[in-house]
């Protein structure tokens, strides 16, 4: 899988590249409009992260170009502007998703994988990790053939961990993803601990091949036993 990051902020581009490389993607970066256009002219990418606020041009123009070539559906817009107009314009031009800075790495992973999955042939809506299988369509989780009987939130949590296999998922990222965007409220994520306790118990009771371990108190990580 080959990804292109079009982002003028070098630090951020480097970080994203580093993180995505951990997911075994081949990652390239373009720091300005011209480099981006050049690279897009030569190679095909499975997913493109596009910052629309470039110093020498508008990212939306790149998107327009991609749309003409029929390649805009695998673009994720990343923008510091949480503007509805930009969002609508971007999605109108065929972008798959819109991510507002700052975002969590776990969230980016989840979005990128969603784009890649949509590209793949239909019918595949299964996520697998160890002996665990998630049926995204039926929203069911199985250990071998054994249904885990997860509630809605537990399924969302597990799904998120499977999109971020072995990666750190911070409590904040998890809360935002599963319980919605919380713009003001509480570092108090005790209730997440409570949810995680239940989920871990279900995994353990069903002899799942994975477990979710705590990482320095800031978050969790799914690992294969």
């Amino acid at each position, binding site marked *: 899988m080959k990804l292109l990051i079009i982002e003028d*902020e070098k630090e*951020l581009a480097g970080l*994203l590249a580093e993180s995505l490389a951990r997911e075994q993607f081949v990652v390239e970066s373009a720091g300005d409009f011209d480099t981006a256009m050049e690279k897009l002219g030569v190679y095909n990418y499975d997913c493109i992260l596009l910052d629309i606020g470039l110093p020498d041009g508008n990212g939306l123009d790149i998107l327009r170009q991609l749309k003409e070539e029929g390649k805009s559906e695998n673009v994720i817009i990343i923008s510091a502007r*949480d503007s*509805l107009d930009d969002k609508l314009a971007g999605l109108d031009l065929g972008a798959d998703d819109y991510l507002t800075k*700052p975002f969590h790495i776990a969230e980016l992973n989840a979005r990128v994988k969603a784009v890649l999955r949509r590209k793949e042939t239909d019918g595949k809506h299964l996520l697998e990790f160890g002996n665990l299988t998630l049926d995204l369509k039926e929203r069911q989780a199985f250990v071998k053939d054994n249904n885990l009987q997860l509630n809605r939130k537990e399924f969302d949590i597990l799904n998120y961990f499977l999109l971020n296999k072995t990666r750190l998922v911070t409590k904040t990222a998890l809360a935002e993803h599963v319980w*919605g965007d919380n713009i003001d409220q509480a570092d108090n994520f005790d209730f997440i601990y409570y949810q995680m306790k239940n989920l871990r118990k279900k995994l353990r009771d069903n002899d799942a091949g994975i477990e979710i371990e705590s990482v320095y108190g800031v978050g969790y990580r799914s690992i294969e036993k």
Partner: protein
Amino acid sequence: MKLLNQSIKHISISILAVVGIWGAVFYYNMIEEIKENVDDGLENYKRQIIYKANRDTALLSRVDFDEAFYSIHPIDKQPALTFTDQYKDTVVHIRGIDEVYARTDPARMLTTAFEDGGKYYELKIINPMIEKNDLIHRLLINMIWLYAFLVIAIIIINNIVLQRLWKPFYQLLQKIKTYRLGSNENFPEVKTRTREFNDLQKAVNTLLSHSTQVYDQQKQFIGNASHELQTPLAIMVNKLELLLEKGNLNDEDAEKIAETMNMAERLIRVNKSLLLLTKIENKQFLDEQPVSVNRVVEQRLPDLKDIADFRKITISFVQEAELTKEMDPALAEILVSNLLRNAFFHNTPKAGAVNITISEKKLHIINTGKDMPLDADKIFDRFYKSGSGNEHTGLGLTIIKAICDLYGISITYQYKDRCHHFTLIF
């Protein structure tokens, strides 16, 4: 005190003084005039009597006032020659035929001397004069009437004049009263030809335009600052995330990094809230459509169910009526979500309650919480925090207020029966 009443008060007092002084002057002038008239009459009498006495000496034997309005007494030559005419005020006792007692009336008396046939006589002539008390009495009554009439006239004229002349002033005042920085596009303006009002209007507008400029700059600054902070903050948190993920840290270091990350995330939340506030205040949410508040609450409530379960908070949600409001759906969601989160997160640690009631025009949220009222004047201020808790940005309620202000929703806070009440009237 209203300008109208003030001016009437002042004018009435001044007029009272003016009418008083005028009355006194008028009275003395009047008395003088009357005396002059009476004296002229006495002078005429004198001539007539002396003339008659010349021809009819029988007159000279009349001595007393009993028979006529004059008396004649013979006097010596010496005093008679040096005699000068004297006018003086005196009284006469007059008794009418049908009267028992004599009346005392003011009179004017002329004392003079004349010579007739080598003999000298003193002549006193009396002429009744107007009663001063009567005059004063009359004058006073008239003055009171005049005063009353003047005051009434002035009140009426003042009313008309003030209402007409000051109309632009009151219009301007009304417009200034309803003017809100940042929410009104046009400055207060009225059409008038009065220079003072035009000057006032100009001064007010200069002041307002300066304030608006400062306000806009401040708003823009907050927006820009928050915006510029987004990317560095993103990089910071992401770097820390990657660092923690690598895992080869000792616990102590990891803990410090985790703390730093929490701080950075708090910054991000503050920043996001400020950006959202700026956007609300800049009216960047324009997608207005009828939004069912009932549906929004129904949708947001499950998100908080886990927290409620965890903290043993009982929820009651009563829908007495359907409440719809023309507003941006995203803002409606933020409004309801923030209100609910506020009720849940600021609840008691154990066995609390959140009661939500929707009636025709009202969204009422009651929650248990700290056993003391919050400062109702300050809770909607930016960065207001009750107590020492610092997990919150202190912007949640400010955002709620900003959204309410944008759509003209009134929001009030009350502490009643040991519960915190938030009432929104749509």
